[in-house]
């Protein structure tokens, strides 16, 4: 029942493909070299800020305000990180508690967002029911509303729900991700109806079709939503500032924010801020690479469309 069955090429087509790719081999090579040179130059330019952030965190005070400013640091030091550690030891709640809160809420949010958005997207893309267009157009219009004025009504709603100061408030509001649903729907639409019908004739229920066929085919989209959900949850301070009162319910970005608040103007503060920024940023990179690998490794399913 898995999608692989559909993809297995006949030996004849396989041979033809080999011959064709041999014929185009030289052309591709030349083009790839050209594309790579251009992209490498651009990539270096795009990566400059990251290089700067990485190096900034390791600069000693004497280099932080150097003229002319430099991207690379001459004498890398862990002084900024020591300062950060020292500062974090003076707080009542241990650093590990914030870290635990952040990791837990982010994991639940990412898993939840993927699950909730792709289920809704599957129904929007592949099922017929009353109100389908209406509900979906609500989702799209919601994307367009400027979030600034919604802050107060949102606060009122959350306060009246009674989920203030719980773990739920870190997760539930983020599960409503119209972008994720929209993105996923665009991918789910491309699954051939024949495939789904064939599975249903074989006796598969909707949930089985969703989990065994729709989700595996849309792995690239799942990974993309995962990346977005992680970024949305990992570095946001809004929940901690507005919707929690207890210090032990707050998350890591809030903690680093309190450390660097009011410090950015003095010389030592710059270093601490850079170290904290780097610490918050690195998980983003790691998660991105992990998920992006998944996008590339699902090439096996590409024969479906």
């Amino acid at each position, binding site marked *: 029942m898995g999608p692989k069955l559909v993809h297995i090429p006949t030996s004849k087509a396989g041979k033809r493909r080999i011959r064709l790719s041999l014929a185009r081999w030289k052309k591709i090579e030349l*083009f*790839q070299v050209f*594309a790579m040179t*251009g*992209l490498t130059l*651009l*990539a270096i330019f*795009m990566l*400059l*800020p*990251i290089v*700067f*952030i990485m190096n*900034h965190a390791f600069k000693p005070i004497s280099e932080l305000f150097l*003229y002319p400013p430099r991207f690379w640091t001459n004498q890398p030091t862990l002084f900024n990180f020591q300062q950060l550690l020292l500062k974090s030891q003076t707080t009542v709640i241990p650093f590990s508690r914030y870290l635990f809160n952040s990791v837990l809420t982010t994991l639940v949010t990412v898993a939840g967002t993927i699950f*909730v958005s792709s*289920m*809704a997207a599957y129904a929007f893309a592949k*099922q*017929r*029911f009353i109100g389908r267009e209406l*509900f979906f157009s609500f989702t*799209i*219009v*919601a*994307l*367009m*509303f400027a979030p*600034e*004025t*919604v802050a*107060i*009504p949102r606060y*009122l*709603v959350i306060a009246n729900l009674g989920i203030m100061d719980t773990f739920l408030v870190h997760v*539930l*509001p983020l*599960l*409503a991700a*119209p*972008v994720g649903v*929209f*993105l996923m729907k*665009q991918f789910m639409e491309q699954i051939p109806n024949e495939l789904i019908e064939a599975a249903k004739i074989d006796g598969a229920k*909707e949930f089985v079709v969703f989990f065994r066929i729709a989700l595996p085919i849309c792995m*690239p*989209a799942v*990974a*993309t939503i995962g990346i977005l959900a992680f970024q949305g949850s990992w570095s946001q301070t809004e929940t901690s500032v507005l919707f929690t009162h207890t210090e032990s319910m707050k998350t890591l970005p809030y903690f680093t924010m309190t450390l660097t608040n009011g410090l950015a103007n003095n010389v030592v503060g710059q270093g601490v801020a850079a170290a904290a*920024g780097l610490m918050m*940023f690195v998980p*983003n*990179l790691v998660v*991105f*690479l992990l998920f992006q690998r998944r*996008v*590339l490794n699902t090439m096996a399913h590409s*024969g*479906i*469309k």
Partner: protein
Amino acid sequence: MSSAAIMKRRWRALLTTLWKQRVSYLFIAPFMICFTVFIVIPIVLANALAFFSFDAISMPTFIGWDNFLAILTQDRIFLQNAIPNTFKFAIIVGPLGYSLSFLLAWLIHQLPKRIRDIFTIAIYTPSLSAGVAMSVVWLVIFNGDRIGYFNNFLLSIGVVQDPQLWLQDPQYFMNIMIIVSLWASMGVGFLAMLAGLQTVNTELYEAGAIDGISNRLQEIYYITIPAIKPQMLFGAIMSVVGTLKAGAIGALLAGSPITPQYSGHLITNHIEDYAFIRYELGYASALSVVLLLLVYGSSRLSFRLFSSKGEE
């Protein structure tokens, strides 16, 4: 048969259909519940506020269409700065950022599989690190004294005699905003198009080659774009919505919510100004309703443009 009986029968028919489709409702339920509670209700409340005068402390008082009248007749900064700035910004950054996203996604897809993700992360990081990068990189680059990289560079090659105040001069501010936004425009749409390219059936290209497609431009036009049309539409909508709703960038570059002489003042900045500085929340809500209408109109337009282009 009495009309009551007909009504009853219709109701029953409707209920049976709904019951038959219960699985679909089960599928969308988790999303729709969260969505209604955390997005729809707040938006409806915010829209209602547009007809009130509300300062966040005393009770809102109903004033009807007055807020909208004031926007159209009295708000000079909105009409003379925010609207033209937003359109200039969106018309340049939207299409250009979108084409860049597609082009780069496509170029990355041409590379060998093993090194693709390195380039992906390089192109994507600017939008990932926007907040961090902005404060430590672009502000340093466009710093107004001799320390700024750009001034430093121009001074050393002798183009200017004195350091320019790039971020304080209304003349340059908008252009710098556009450059920085373009640099950070490879976001969700870029990722979606890249992921879409991975799902294109490679046999299509071979079939195309047999049918006489000879160069890459033809390949893009006849095979790639039709094959990833849903992702391209997603990218288009996201870039329309993203550029019209943009606003954080000017505030970050200027270091204050109001840009120099309103040179980079976008509609969103105007809303923030009224919501968080003047605390005229009713007026801010009316402004965001106007913005919603603008974004909605433009995205309908791009829906139409896009589907007609794709169907050729």
